[in-house]
């Protein structure tokens, strides 16, 4: 499922070094192989169930396991982050115009490794939808929406994440954000 270019011991070692050197952040393009990417696009084309709370979130939830909640991905995340990981939370969310999530104290979590994968047939960064991660007191890290891209990011207990509001330039386009959280 993982792009073979990423899935060999030498490259895994390089990615682990890069993850550490970048302060616990690694972004990978073309993350899944063709078959895996197509499966995600199929999921992205499904209609989800609307979740809305005006002061917290707006998106469609889509049921189903994905590669990001698999044992194989858990092992991959463990290898890159240099620590045995266990999946504690997963979600598949589809974002359209007017969708967002906000930072909120209720969403406060402990130390964790977050993996976010995006799937879309068409997206432009100016439409919004970026996954934004606060990292301590420094500048937030912004992960833009791009098809078949993945971020692995180590988050501390005081770090937050949100998904930027999708604006009217997105028209009827949408993207799927698959997220897994590991401890």
């Amino acid at each position, binding site marked *: 499922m993982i792009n073979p270019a990423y899935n060999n011991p030498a490259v895994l070692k390089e990615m682990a070094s890069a993850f550490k050197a970048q302060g616990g952040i690694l972004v990978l393009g073309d993350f899944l192989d063709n078959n895996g990417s197509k499966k995600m696009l199929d999921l992205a084309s499904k209609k989800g169930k609307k979740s809305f*709370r*005006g*002061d917290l979130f707006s998106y469609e939830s889509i049921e189903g396991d994905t590669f990001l909640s698999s044992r194989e991905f858990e092992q991959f995340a463990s290898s890159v982050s240099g620590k045995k990981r266990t999946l504690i939370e997963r979600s598949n969310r589809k974002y359209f115009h*007017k969708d*967002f*999530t*906000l*930072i909120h104290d209720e969403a406060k979590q402990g130390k964790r490794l977050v993996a976010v994968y995006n799937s879309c047939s068409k997206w432009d960064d100016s439409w*919004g939808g970026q996954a*934004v991660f606060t990292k301590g007191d420094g500048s937030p890290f912004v992960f833009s929406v791009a098809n078949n891209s993945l971020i692995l990011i180590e988050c501390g207990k005081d770090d937050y994440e*949100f998904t*930027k*509001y999708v*604006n*009217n*330039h997105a028209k009827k386009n949408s993207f799927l954000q698959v997220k897994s959280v590991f401890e």
Partner: protein
Amino acid sequence: MFSINEQNIAKLKKDFSEAKPYPHVLIENFLPEKDAKALARALRNEPFKEKDSDLFHLWQTVDLENAKQPLLKQMHEFVSSKDFATFMKEVTGLNVKAGVLDFAGSLYKDTNYLLCHDDKVEDRKIAYIYYLSEDFNESEGGALSLFTDDNGKPGKVVKRFYPKWNSLVAFEVSSKSWHAVEEVIGKKDRYALGGWLR
């Protein structure tokens, strides 16, 4: 000094107290036309800084006490005055004090928005927004939308105020005063002045 156009206080008072989902009022033709036009010009010449967070993406001036445009400073003095506080007290029935609490200009361009929140900070009693743009319609967005309260969470939008030239909207701030500024769509810019009374 500015002066408010003659208003039917009894009607405004009734509008405010009976409004749903929480007390609010729309005051049309708020200032004399020439003053509104001069303020709109001054606001367009004032520097704006882009503000971008999870909750909003918009442009804002400094607190107008420190405005570059003298007329905006005068407006700051006016909303800090006893006259303005007395007017708001009569309309809302709330015991507000003279003296301003944060008063700034805002600009929403295409794609800009302010998501839902309650404004409940410090000792704010009344929030007010004075519109200095041409009228907006539904297809242009920019509405101030008011939500019902659903056990401490925002419920549905039951009222929308599209910006209307030279009008002022005021609402009572509480943990239930859920509101948002809907995204501006298109080329028309949404200019306003806003602040709070305590």
